[in-house]
Every structure is written in structure tokens, then in C-alpha cells.
């Protein structure tokens, strides 16, 4: 899946282009006048409190939700079933009794949407095996998915997203409920894929720290407002305060960033935009 042939030459068109997009849901503005261009090969990290519309933005790009304005994904309007987009949604628990192996889950990313029972072939099995070994999931590929650990399941989901050789990878809180070791491993996989394929990554998270050194650009979404730029432009007391509309302090501690809001946050109870994982986990 990462052969030389699949390496994309520098593409002229941006991976994602959003122009003056607004999304309103039930009278509430999720985002207003959003304009953003994500170049091919970029790593964009989207941060913001729960309910800020991070997942919705991914779903707009996937063609699953409507939004006003001009949106182009890989040079065309968003539409379902684009094989050039890999998607890892927020983790959900899988029934431990479900008769499905990791191998089967990964294969769905290749031909799961096709009709017919799909008895498989050497070629399909070969690609699945390749994807499994690439994410280091080969040792547990034949075990029931629902009995694997969170980190193991997440490797499988990433293999499922990458097996179709996408140009754009959308990840929705892929580090949620993973311990520090697994967070690092998953981040290394994504970074490795990007290095080898030159693909574009959009990474949704509430904690920017694990991906800070991979991130080219950060977009913060808060209460319908947004800001995007280099991490050192966005993750500052000034930028965050103006985004939140209230005093917010951005603290850097040994290469890590914490965004601390004062009391009286006008956007509800979510005071930490980004925080050390331990703190966020405890609050969940």
C-alpha cells in the first residue's frame, strides 16, 4: 500500500478548499464564514471543546453532512464513497462476541462496500496482510476484534483507513482512551504514513500535545468562531483569548502546551481547550 508507485507527486490543487462555509444546526451556528485551504501533504490539527463542530467538519468533507459555501475535497465537491479519503471515526465499543477478526475489519476498508458475499482472493488477502503488518497488527489479526485492547483496535482501524491507499486521512479523536505508550505508537504510524505517501492528514483532537511536533497548522473552533495558522501563531494567549472572547492563558511547559481559561467562559463548561492528557481523561 505504500509502494513507490503510490507516492504522489506534488499536487497543484489543495487537498481541501473551504470558502465562506457556514453551518447552522437547529438555530445554533456551528461555524460561520469558514475559509480554509489545506495543501497536499499538510498535517492539520483541529482542536476545540466538545460540541464545537470538529466531527461535523469531517463529516462535511466526507459528504455526510451539508454546509453552505464552497467546499472542495481533492479537487471535487464532497461526496460519499470517495476511495481517496481514509476515515477513522471516534472509537466505539465492539461486542466481544462479534464473530469478526481484525483481518475482516481491515478488509472492509478495501471492498466492504461492494455487493455480493465477497469470497476473497489471493490479491485481496495479500493487500490485507500487507496493511496488517504495516501497522504491526499481524500478531493479533486473527483474534476477535471485540476482545482486543483499545490500542490494538485503533491500529486495525488505521489499517482499514489506509488500505485503500488514500490521499487524505481524516482522524476523529484517534487517541481517545489510549494510554501514553499507545498514543505515541499511533502517532508514529500516522507520521510514517504521511512521510511515505505524501498524503494529507486532518487530525481532530481535544489535546494538541501528542501531535504538536507533527502539526503544520492548527485550527481552533470555539462557539462558531475559528482561527487557523501555525501552532506558534494559534496556541498563544492572545489568539486564544480573542477566539474565546474571554481571557485565556496559554502556558508552555517543556514542549507541551496547556490552554487555561479563566472562570466566566461564555461558551459553557469546557474550560480546557487543550490540556495534558491526564487532566483531560480525569475530566471525562
Amino acid at each position, binding site marked *: 500500500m505504500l509502494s513507490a508507485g503510490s507516492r504522489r507527486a506534488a499536487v497543484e490543487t489543495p487537498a481541501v478548499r473551504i470558502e465562506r462555509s457556514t453551518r447552522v444546526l437547529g438555530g445554533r451556528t456551528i461555524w460561520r464564514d469558514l475559509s480554509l485551504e489545506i495543501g497536499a501533504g499538510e498535517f492539520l490539527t483541529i482542536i476545540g471543546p466538545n460540541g464545537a463542530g470538529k466531527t461535523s467538519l469531517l463529516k462535511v468533507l*466526507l*459528504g*455526510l453532512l451539508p454546509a453552505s459555501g464552497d467546499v472542495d475535497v481533492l479537487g471535487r465537491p464532497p461526496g*460519499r*464513497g*470517495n*476511495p481517496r*479519503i481514509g*476515515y*477513522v*471515526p*471516534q472509537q466505539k465499543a*465492539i*461486542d466481544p*462476541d*462479534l*464473530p*469478526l*477478526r481484525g483481518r*475482516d*475489519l481491515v478488509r*472492509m*476498508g478495501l*471492498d*466492504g*462496500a*461492494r*455487493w*455480493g*458475499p*465477497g469470497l476473497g482472493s489471493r490479491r485481496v488477502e495479500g493487500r490485507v496482510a500487507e496493511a496488517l503488518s504495516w501497522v504491526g497488527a499481524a*500478531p*493479533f489479526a*486473527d*483474534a*476477535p476484534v471485540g*476482545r*482486543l485492547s483499545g490500542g490494538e483496535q485503533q491500529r486495525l482501524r488505521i489499517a*482499514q*483507513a489506509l488500505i485503500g491507499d488514500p490521499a487524505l486521512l481524516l482522524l476523529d479523536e484517534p487517541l481517545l482512551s489510549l494510554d501514553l505508550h499507545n498514543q505515541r505508537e499511533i502517532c508514529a504510524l500516522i507520521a510514517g504514513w504521511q512521510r511515505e505517501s505524501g498524503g494529507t492528514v486532518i487530525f481532530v483532537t481535544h489535546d494538541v500535545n501528542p501531535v504538536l511536533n507533527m502539526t503544520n497548522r492548527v485550527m481552533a473552533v470555539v462557539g462558531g468562531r475559528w482561527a487557523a495558522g501555525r501552532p506558534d501563531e494559534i496556541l498563544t494567549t492572545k489568539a486564544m483569548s480573542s477566539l474565546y472572547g474571554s481571557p485565556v492563558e496559554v502556558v508552555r511547559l517543556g514542549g507541551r502546551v496547556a490552554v487555561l481559561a479563566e472562570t466566566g467562559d461564555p461558551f459553557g463548561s469546557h474550560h480546557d481547550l487543550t490540556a495534558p492528557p491526564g487532566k483531560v481523561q480525569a475530566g471525562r
Partner: protein
Amino acid sequence: MMALLHYEFIQNALLSGAVIAVVAGFVGPFVVSRNMSFAVHGIAEVGFTGAAGGVLFGVDPVIGLLVGAVLAALGIGTLGVRLRDRDVAIGSVLAFGLGLGVLFLTLYTRYATEAFTILFGTITGVSRGEVILLTGLGVLTLGALAAISRPLMFASVDPDVAEARGVPVQALSIAFLLILAVAVAEAIQAVGVLLVLTLLITPAAAAQKLAVRPAAASLVSVAIAATVTMAGILISLVTPYPASFYVSALSFGSYVAARLVGPRLVQRRYRLVA
């Protein structure tokens, strides 16, 4: 015992039992993985109303049963679009359907014995014509299931990714309800309205304790459904008790056994998982 096999009604019972069990065995794993036990129950009870209506209006109760089951499936599919609404939609459709059933029962007083047979099954009362009908429907159902099985599995296991990948999740859910309606109508012939779960849930539930591959789980489910149905019919021929009882007892026995043996079996094969 062998001499019994020369009777036409016994041949009919075994033939239709085999068809019904194979259909139920293949449909079951999807019912289990989509958490649709309650839908099976709802469809079956409205099927009962359809059969009662059939008797009342002079239509073959098997046709009435099918019509009732399909209408129930469509009602559940239309009202319960969102998963959260589904149970409530099923409950509402089921309650209304049964209300109609009570009305039909009152309007047609001779119905009491018919009602008993539909509620508890009369596999030995199946005619040759009905065997052909059940087989035809069974083949159609399995063909339709085979056609949609891969995207249906994707949509059942991983609806978010499936939708992003272009799987018509909503349409598949309706299509599966229709397949389920036919499977339920068939299973009612064997074990009756009140015991359909014994063929549509129990074998699949046992199978998923024993198998870890989707295809293997389907085959084990079919094998269990077919074995308990055939054995149940045969035992009922030489004892004074109904086949439905034996089928449900054997089916439950297979589930208990699978629960006892399964975890050890699976864990030994996948030591990594422990």
C-alpha cells in the same frame, strides 16, 4: 422410524423444516449483530395478525402471515429510522398489530384452534404446495441476503465508516427488515409466532460463541438451526409432544453448551487475546 418417512406429511415437515432452518440460520447472525431480537418478536406478532386476518377474509393464512410480517417490517423501518427510536417504533407497531389480531379473533369465532397452531407452530400440517412456496421464498431470501451481505456486514459493524465509504446504510436497513420479515414468516411455520426467536436468535448466538470468522459463524448457525429443527421434528413423531417444544429445548441446549465450551475454545485458539 424409517417407515414414518414414507408418509407425505412427514416428508413435507422435514423438507420445509430444512428450508426454514437454513434461512433462519443465515439470517440469524445479522439479527444478533444488529441487536434486532425485539424486531423479530414484533414482526412475528404482526404476522400472527396477518394470518388471523387471512383466515377471516378467506385468504391462505400463510399469505396473510407474509403480508402481516412485511407490513410490520416496513412500519418498523419507516418509524424507527434512528436506532434510538427503533425499539419504541417496534413496540408501537407490535401493540397495534396485536390489537387488530384480537379483533379478528373475535370476529371469527372458529379461529381459536387456528390461533393456537399459528402461535405454537404446526410443522406437521404443512402441505406440499406450502413446501414449494416456502422453498421458493427461501431461495429468494437467501439470494437477496447473499447480494447485500458484505455491505450489510460493514454497515452493521462499522456504520460510520460504511456510510463514508458510500454504503447505503439506511436502504440496507430496510432491505434487511424485509428479508427478516420473510425469514420470520417462514420460521413461524415451524415453531410458531411465540417461538421464532428459537430459530432466529439462539443458533446464531450459540454460533458466535464458537466461531470468530463471519462465514464460519453463519455456517455453524445454519448447522445448529438445521440439526435442532430436524431432530425436533423426528423426536416429536415418536412422542406425544409437539415439535416446537423439542426444537426450542434443543436450540437452548446448544446455546448453553456453546456458552460453556466456546470461551475456552476461542481463547485456546487465540492465546494472545486472553
